[in-house]
């Protein structure tokens, strides 16, 4: 079967209605993980920023709009997507142009998530086509909205298994005047997590806290006098962990997990309590580890085929297999298996939104 590429929401709805087999939804093809055998349905034809009101901190775009186009439109007004969209092309070895719909489908969020929130926290509204070809709207374009159930959050991170996103709206934020990154060398993972927890527990609005290869980084953003003050008191408050120096901006590399690009190793992404991270590292036997979100997000590079979830054991949280051979994905599952009552709820929702089971089958198990 030939790939499908509708030009409008209406055409997309018709294609889904008339589909006689499974559809593999794709934006720019830059960040999908796991396996899905289906005819490609590209949303790249649904493209363009439909509304940007800087004074209301609001942006609405069609789901196939390139992220770069949105970032440029925002930058022209001194604004940005505050959740720091990761670029997964290097890590996953992909080409292509990342689209905003894919970002939402993956709830993809960078280092600032630890303080400012994830993609889902900035997402104000969605339009999508469900598995029956019906066009559904939920949320809107205003910052406070509790009208009806919040399907916006449900769609974020659903990896195209509940519907095909056609339009998304965001709360956007001003780009701060100044950014400063402080670094400290020589801590081990336990020391780094302790230092990051201490930093995130101060009133200085630390909005990045990461650790890799013996270096711990903290980020402060805001108006210049404020950033100068905060970074100085923070370095002083954290002196017990070592000396803190201002360094050049490492955050794009942390966001994109640049350290794990290339090679044949598997890559896992673990979400857990920050204080559990050092213990996981002790058990994981990984080749390399990158800690973000103050330790709440752990990226691990491991030997091919191994099951990291054994090391995670009973710890609260979950491990996602981000990069591995297809067989490994099939054997271990891309996403962590959930307890029976959650599986029942998830299956129930998918059966309601996509009764024929044609949207991204296999993608989330």
């Amino acid at each position, binding site marked *: 079967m030939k790939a499908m590429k509708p030009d409008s929401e209406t055409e997309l709805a018709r294609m889904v209605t008339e589909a006689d087999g499974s559809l593999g939804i794709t934006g720019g093809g830059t960040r999908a993980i796991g396996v899905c055998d289906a005819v490609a349905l590209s949303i790249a034809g649904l493209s363009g920023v439909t509304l940007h009101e800087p*004074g209301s901190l609001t942006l609405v775009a069609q789901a196939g709009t390139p992220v770069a186009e949105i970032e440029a439109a925002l930058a022209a007004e001194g604004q940005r997507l505050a959740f720091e969209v990761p670029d997964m092309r290097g890590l996953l070895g992909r080409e292509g142009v990342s689209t905003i719909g894919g970002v939402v489908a993956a709830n993809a969020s960078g280092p600032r998530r630890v303080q400012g929130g994830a993609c889902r926290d900035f997402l104000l509204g969605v339009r999508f086509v469900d598995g029956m070809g019906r*066009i559904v709207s939920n949320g809107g374009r205003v*910052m406070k909205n*509790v009208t009806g*159930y919040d*399907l916006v959050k*449900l769609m974020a991170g659903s990896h195209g298994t509940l519907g095909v996103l056609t339009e998304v709206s965001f709360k956007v934020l001003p780009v701060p005047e100044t950014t400063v990154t402080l670094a400290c060398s020589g801590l081990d993972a336990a020391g780094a997590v302790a230092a990051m927890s201490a930093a995130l527990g101060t009133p200085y609005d630390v909005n990045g806290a990461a650790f890799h290869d013996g270096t711990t980084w903290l980020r402060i953003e805001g108006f210049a006098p404020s950033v100068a003050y905060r970074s100085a008191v923070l370095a002083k408050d954290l002196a017990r962990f070592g000396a803190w120096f201002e360094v050049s901006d490492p955050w794009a590399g942390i966001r994109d997990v640049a350290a794990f690009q290339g090679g044949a190793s598997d890559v896992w992404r673990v979400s857990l*309590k920050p204080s559990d991270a050092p213990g996981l590292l002790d058990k994981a036997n990984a080749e390399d580890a990158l800690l973000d979100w103050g330790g*709440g997000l752990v990226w691990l590079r491991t030997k091919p085929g191994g099951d990291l979830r054994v090391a995670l054991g009973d710890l609260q949280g979950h491990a996602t297999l981000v990069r591995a051979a297809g067989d490994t994905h099939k054997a271990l599952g891309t996403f962590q298996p959930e307890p029976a009552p959650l599986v029942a709820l998830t299956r*129930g929702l998918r059966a309601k939104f996509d009764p024929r089971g044609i949207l991204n089958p296999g993608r989330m198990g």
Partner: protein
Amino acid sequence: MDMPAPNPALLALKPKLVERLLKVLPRDAVIDDEAETRAYECDALTAYRCPPLVAVLPSTTQEVSDVLRICHDMGVPVVPRGSGTSLAGGALPTADSVILGVARMNDVLETDYANRLIRVQTGRTNLSVTGAVEADGFFYAPDPSSQLACAIAGNIAMNSGGAHCLKYGVTTNNLLGVTLVQMDGTVVEIGGGYMDAGGLDLLGVICGSEGQLGVVTEATLRILPKPEGARPVLIGYDSNEVAGQCVSDIIKAGVLPVAIEFMDRPCIRATEAFAKAGYPDCEALLIIEVEGSEAEIDDQLARIVEIANRHNPVELRESKSADESARIWLGRKSAFGAMGQINDYMCLDGTIPVSQLPYVLRRIGEMSQQYGLGVGNVFHAGDGNMHPLILFDANKLGDLELCEAFGADILKLCVEVGGCLTGEHGVGIEKRDLMIDQFSAIDMDAQMAVKDVFDPKWLLNPAKVFPLETSAARRAAAE
């Protein structure tokens, strides 16, 4: 407001139901005396009242599960209740329902500063969550104005906001995990001390589902380090347009205050008469608060004042001390009480795009003339969440209906300009029948599909959120 007629078969089940409930709950946790059930006949939307069949006050998740299993088994609807402070009728019972109050479940289960979280039972009040951690320099950010009384259970059900959500977000942005008891008694743990969902974001749809998907008995909440300090500036303008433009310019300039509050002339006059806060007699008043160290506050306020001065304010008062800050906030905090002194009032909660502020305020003024009812506006301007207070006389025949019609017109206007019916109070019964003005039949069908999955018999918090006609087929099929 129509409510479904009570089911006589369920009313007849009362003795049997009480007998079964007493097998799983202590005597003092089952309230079945008709005089005592009256205590649960309404929430803060007092215009609507109906005593429940029975009220229960469980003390543990296991007891909640037992109660729900029994009610599920007997087909009895259940109305979950936190502290009963809903302004939307979210905890209004039906005559054939059981009120399940979580007020006895108010323990702190865990505080974890290293991971910046607290785990509580959901009957705990919002303010006492902050109370449990503030000595150590932390706080729980969502701050609905009822925070002294309202329970976390209700905050989660309604996805409550507050004055400070421009910076800190609403409940859903500060909720990490829940223990949810489903209608059939199944206990589910969703989320926890980590930051994102492992599968579908069920937590995201449970928050704000108005108690219709399950009963949340425990919650893991994000706590934040308290800012070093906070101070407001008060700015008066002689037109709503100019005040709205000032708000927009401040936001565009990259200053992100924790709160931007807006009051219009009727509200300013009422609060002045009531609280004597020393507000200027002007068309529009802004209270803008920023946080940080003393020097940071000075710097941010200077930026705000510079922008405000470009728009020729009639008054500009920068707080220099805690005392001055308190005086600036005094009027705003007593605004509802002040309006209540004049008359009965109905508080609306629509949200609009910030850019539409001047137009919407002008239209509300025109409608006020047409309806012959006074209205004052006090609201969170930074995020467009309006709170028009419509004055009426509850003792005057037909005035409540007139007020409701006026309110409905205001909310329809909010939707028309790109906003929504409710920003932080919830739909409940109050805005139930207006849902068709915001959503298509398919939009609502998708929402009701979620309800079908979590509560297939449609027993939880009946007759709320979805218009009765819209949900009729599903309710009939569930019986």
